């Protein structure tokens, strides 16, 4: 049954495979407004890089013919059979221009019906050096949200400009969002050059205006290309129609860009994703190296606890490693039995991330409902999810002129600077230093929608409000007054959990304990235990149970988890004799 064992490879197959195996991944975001020719540009790139199959091309030929027919209201022409039969290469030249390249990329029914692009799509392209993942981000509908989505992972961006129209406000907006999301390299494709007779002066006028602007945004490199997406000039082939252009082709530029160097150079960050514990003798912290490099023997610390230990081993399915760099998914074993679980982060002792409860961030708002500063949201950053509140909007970016405007809130597609307060500390770097650990998403706790994307700027200055959050009554004083230790008790998720909680409450009350039963609400449970009570929590949702454990741990509360197999007496006994312990 094993078909894997193969005879030696033929030399030409070997060469093809080696070529394919040594390719680097490059993630690209292509942005442009309606009618800038973005779908056409992407379709053209796929077509010229052999990223399309013959039947896909045939389908597009048929659809192109239909569309052309619909436009002219002529009888639908049948596609010449010789065209269908012709290979991809043979179709170069005049016939190519009959193809509507945008049809290669607009995939949903509504998109084809309306001739528009409504959502981010991903395309795949292979060049001799690169595998390129293209985020095809529609510019007009909810452009901020879509652009941010595509740009979040991109190593490079391409912005389209219509040569006839020049630099428009939307071009500036696109460049601004690209820089905000940290795309290091930007190309501006001045498209439809065929419609301005490949005029050099037009190109240079648009170019110098954009380059001046882009430099203020802090890109590492900005390049300009005079192109015609529908005719194929300077996209994968140099154009004879722009002899004055010495900047090469768009594809040549994509192949020349450095690869992921920012992640490699940053300090080591390892968000703990999942704890592997197949048996008592093995405890591995599974995760993906977010940035930097770790070696066996390195001294590391676990955050937020700050406990120090050494890396005892780096394990993979394929055997142990001596070192691991971004973005490898590995499993780390530590030299000591230090407490580390999902949501924690490992870093070298000399360059830890910041553990911040209060921080300032740039926020792109996606929610249909505007940002509500009185409401609790959830923030997911690296592998940690924490309840959070956007305490204040400092300003909103006016995308028309990129000015900063005072604002109370953010509406759909708004971008602003905010002050965020999290109940558990986030382990972060500034986004401009580290796109992996400086990024977060905002989730609506009720609807579960992803309503925002955030980029950490740094710690918020601690104002008066931060200071009063610390209670003036210590846990020791509460203990002395109440004669008990505030404890969180999590009941097993059984169908009778609620009635069991009330039974326990009654028994413990009769024994003189200060006790209360809580259903599901993490915040209430934490507040009660923090105030010195025994809080009996029953919650069915695994997410709630996890959140409770994580938060009890961060708050340093005494923790007890009851077992479904225990009878009432045993449970009462355990609670009464609870020793201080953390989950």
């Amino acid at each position, binding site marked *: 049954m094993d078909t*894997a064992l193969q005879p030696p490879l033929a030399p030409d197959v070997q060469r093809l495979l080696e070529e394919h195996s040594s390719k680097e991944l490059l993630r690209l975001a292509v942005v442009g407004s309606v009618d800038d020719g973005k779908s056409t540009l992407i379709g053209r790139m796929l077509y010229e890089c052999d990223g399309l199959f013959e039947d896909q091309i045939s389908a597009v030929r048929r659809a192109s013919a239909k569309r052309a027919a619909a436009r002219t209201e002529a009888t639908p022409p049948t596609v010449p059979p010789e065209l269908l039969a012709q290979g991809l290469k043979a179709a170069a030249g005049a016939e190519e221009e009959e193809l509507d390249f945008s049809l290669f990329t607009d995939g949903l029914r509504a998109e084809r019906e309306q001739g528009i692009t409504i959502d981010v799509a991903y395309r795949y392209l292979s060049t001799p050096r690169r595998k390129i993942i293209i985020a095809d981000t529609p510019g007009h509908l909810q452009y901020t949200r879509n652009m941010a989505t595509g740009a979040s992972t991109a190593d490079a961006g391409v912005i389209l400009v219509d040569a006839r129209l020049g630099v428009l406000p939307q071009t500036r907006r696109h460049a601004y969002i690209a820089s905000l999301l940290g795309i290091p390299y930007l190309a501006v494709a001045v498209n439809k050059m065929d419609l301005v007779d490949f005029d050099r002066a037009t190109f240079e006028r648009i170019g110098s205006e954009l380059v001046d602007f882009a430099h203020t945004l802090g890109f590492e490199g900005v390049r300009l290309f005079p192109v015609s997406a529908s005719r194929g000039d300077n996209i994968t082939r140099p154009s004879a129609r722009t002899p004055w252009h010495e900047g090469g082709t768009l594809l040549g530029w994509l192949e020349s860009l450095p690869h992921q160097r920012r992640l490699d150079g940053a300090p080591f960050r390892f968000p703990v994703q999942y704890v592997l514990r197949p048996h008592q003798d093995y405890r591995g912290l599974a995760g993906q190296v977010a940035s930097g490099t770790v070696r066996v023997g390195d001294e590391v610390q676990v955050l937020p606890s700050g406990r120090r230990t050494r890396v005892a081993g780096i394990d993979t399915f394929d055997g142990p490693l001596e070192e691991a760099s971004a973005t490898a998914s590995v499993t780390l074993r530590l030299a000591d039995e230090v407490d580390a679980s999902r949501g924690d982060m490992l870093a070298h002792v000399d360059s830890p991330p910041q553990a911040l409860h209060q921080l300032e961030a740039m926020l792109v708002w996606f929610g249909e409902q505007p940002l509500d500063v009185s409401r609790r949201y959830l923030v997911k950053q690296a592998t940690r999810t924490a309840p959070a509140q956007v305490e204040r909007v400092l300003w909103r970016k006016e995308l028309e002129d990129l000015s900063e405007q005072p604002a109370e809130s953010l509406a759909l597609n708004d971008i602003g600077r905010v002050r965020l307060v999290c109940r558990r500390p986030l382990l972060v770097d500034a986004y401009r230093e580290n796109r992996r650990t400086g990024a977060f*998403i905002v989730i609506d706790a009720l609807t579960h929608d992803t309503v925002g994307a955030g980029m950490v700027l740094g710690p918020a200055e601690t104002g008066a409000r931060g200071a009063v959050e610390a209670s003036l009554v210590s846990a020791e004083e509460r203990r002395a007054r109440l004669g008990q230790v505030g404890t969180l008790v999590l009941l097993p998720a059984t169908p009778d959990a609620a009635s069991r909680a009330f039974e326990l409450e009654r028994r413990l009350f009769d024994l003189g304990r200060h006790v209360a039963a809580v259903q599901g609400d993490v915040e209430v449970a934490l507040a009660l235990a923090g105030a010195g009570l025994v809080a009996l929590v029953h919650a069915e949702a695994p997410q709630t149970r996890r959140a409770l454990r994580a938060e009890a741990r961060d708050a340093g509360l005494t923790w007890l988890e009851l077992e479904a197999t225990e009878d009432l007496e045993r449970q009462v006994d355990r609670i009464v004799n609870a020793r201080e312990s953390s989950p």
Partner: protein
Amino acid sequence: MSNDALAKTSHLTELEAESIHILRETVAEFANPVMLYSIGKDSQVLLHLARKAFHPAPLPFPLLHVDTTWKFRDMYTFRDAFVAKHGLRLLVHQNRRALAEGINPFDHGSQKYTHAMKTQALLEALAAHGFDAAFGGARRDEEKSRAKERVFSFRDRHGQWDPRRQRPELWNLYNGRVDAGESMRVFPLSNWTELDVWHYVLRERIPVVPLYFAAERPVIDRGGTLLMVDDERMRLKPGEKPTLRRVRFRTLGCYPLSGAIDSSATTVEAVIHEMIHARQSERQGRLIDHDEEGSMELKKREGYF
């Protein structure tokens, strides 16, 4: 392909790390995940990645085969041998009622058949076991509506996909929050292409069903589609007579609905060689995609994978 220096910089290694991240993230965030197992090459790659993600622990979820009862015999043989060899937990689910009603690909047409035996069966199985996340091996390069699908693809209480209500997905931060009854389809191979999959099969020496390799097989040519006569249930039209042809399959499903291609590729590298020069897309041999334009999108809205 054991050149470590190459392997280190390869995009395959990066895709692998990304997929493992997605697998672990799902298991960490959901209470009851399952992996859809269709016995195809993508399933084999996904399973291999899952074993890597949780090594040295066993897989923290079962496999689910939604069985139409019309798969190729070789697929069942392969499935049982592979599962036994690696000690995997496999659940097999069939739509019993549809079977009792005699629904089959010949009398009921591919649409009705697929809806009953695949979509309905899948939804039944997910509900019966209370799975809140289901891994699938779908790739975005397969089909245009797939290109729009998220890695974490939210499904409502009825298992339905709404392309206009997808959650934005940024960086590698996946929003895995669902309410009771809702679920997530998770696609760790989203960013892989067909070539990547085959290359990885070669690099990792992943076993796949022999039907992917050329052999003499009894086939009929039905309107340009080569169908293999895999057992006596195949309905032949008047004048149709199976002939032996050297064929293989690029994609595997139910045998009466899977078209073969003429080929002489008997090894993984020969398959790759052939594919690099191929000019037909993979799903071109899949009859169920061609019922009408956009048919994959419609199926997914109803709950199809």
